[in-house]
């Protein structure tokens, strides 16, 4: 039985039976896609090798959890801001898989309105090489995005990181990204940027769409 189970788990890209330590919530988009897949297979319609939500080829969609942590070391350029290192273990993709799309999703699950009229800016840096602890050389990172978050709505930021994530697949090349959240306005009393990001309000995940060509037979008819 163990051999049989290993065989089928292996075909599913799993080395062993997963034992989830905590049951992370399923993103609503994945639920919608799952339900749509069920309807599609019953109708024998559509191409199962295409993820239409992202307009790319693929048969696997992963929400890869962030395994990074807050950066506590102070930085001259980052007064009253919060820095976080984001790390996504893309080695979960098998070698045979072709990465079609990778998108970073950062959600500030706290209503920023209570922080008053202040406007926040989010800077995202790709880390190029390892730096010593507490030392941030500009040459060791590259700005990928700088975006303002207005007061009010629950904010989310989506960034296409397909090319960068592809480089992360090379062993020893995955240094992750750094996020800096700055306040560019006056905070109301008792509010601080730290409250935005120190607690679990900043949630990040990497949506990775990939294609395992060995496990996807397109049903498109030949012309």
């Amino acid at each position, binding site marked *: 039985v163990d051999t049989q189970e290993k065989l089928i788990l292996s075909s599913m890209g799993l080395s062993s039976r*997963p034992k*989830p330590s905590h049951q992370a919530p399923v993103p609503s988009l994945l*639920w919608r896609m799952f339900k749509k897949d069920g309807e599609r297979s019953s109708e024998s319609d559509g191409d199962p090798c295409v993820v239409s939500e992202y307009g790319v080829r693929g048969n696997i969609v*992963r929400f890869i959890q962030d395994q990074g942590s807050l950066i506590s070391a102070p930085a001259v350029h980052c007064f009253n801001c919060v820095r976080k290192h984001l790390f996504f273990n893309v080695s*979960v993709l098998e070698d045979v898989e072709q990465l079609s799309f990778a998108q970073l999703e950062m959600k500030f699950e706290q209503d920023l309105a209570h922080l008053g009229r202040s406007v926040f800016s989010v800077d995202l840096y790709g880390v190029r090489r390892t730096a010593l602890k507490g030392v941030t050389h500009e040459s060791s990172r590259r700005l990928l995005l700088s975006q303002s978050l207005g007061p009010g709505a629950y904010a989310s930021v989506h960034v296409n990181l397909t090319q960068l994530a592809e480089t992360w697949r090379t062993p020893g090349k995955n240094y992750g990204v750094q996020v800096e959240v700055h306040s560019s306005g006056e905070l109301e009393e008792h509010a601080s940027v730290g409250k935005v990001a120190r607690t679990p309000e900043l949630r990040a995940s990497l949506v990775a769409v990939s294609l395992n060509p060995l496990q996807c037979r397109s049903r498109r008819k030949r012309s």
Partner: protein
Amino acid sequence: AAYYLPVTPSNVCKPRRLYIDFKDVGWQDWIIAPQGYLANYCHGECPFPLSESLNGTNHAILQTLVHSFDPKGTPQPCCVPIKLSPISMLYYDNNDNVVLRHYEDMVVDECGC
């Protein structure tokens, strides 16, 4: 004629209903959805002469012919899946990531000899 055994229609090769509940194989902790699915299986005989409805291969047609002459030396052809369809599964992987994956060949739609 001594070896001829009439086969009733219910014994003929065809898909049979099989619902696989992931709980039965102990996978309920990591598979989020579906909790189970109708997988089906193929079962039944491939008797001589193979009718068109049994979707026999040329090889199977000849094997039934040989079997009819020499039942002890050559078995009847097997009843196997000839058309399968995929399902999608939502699950947690070994890193607690949520994964939606499309799997081929999970459901038996048609059987043949």
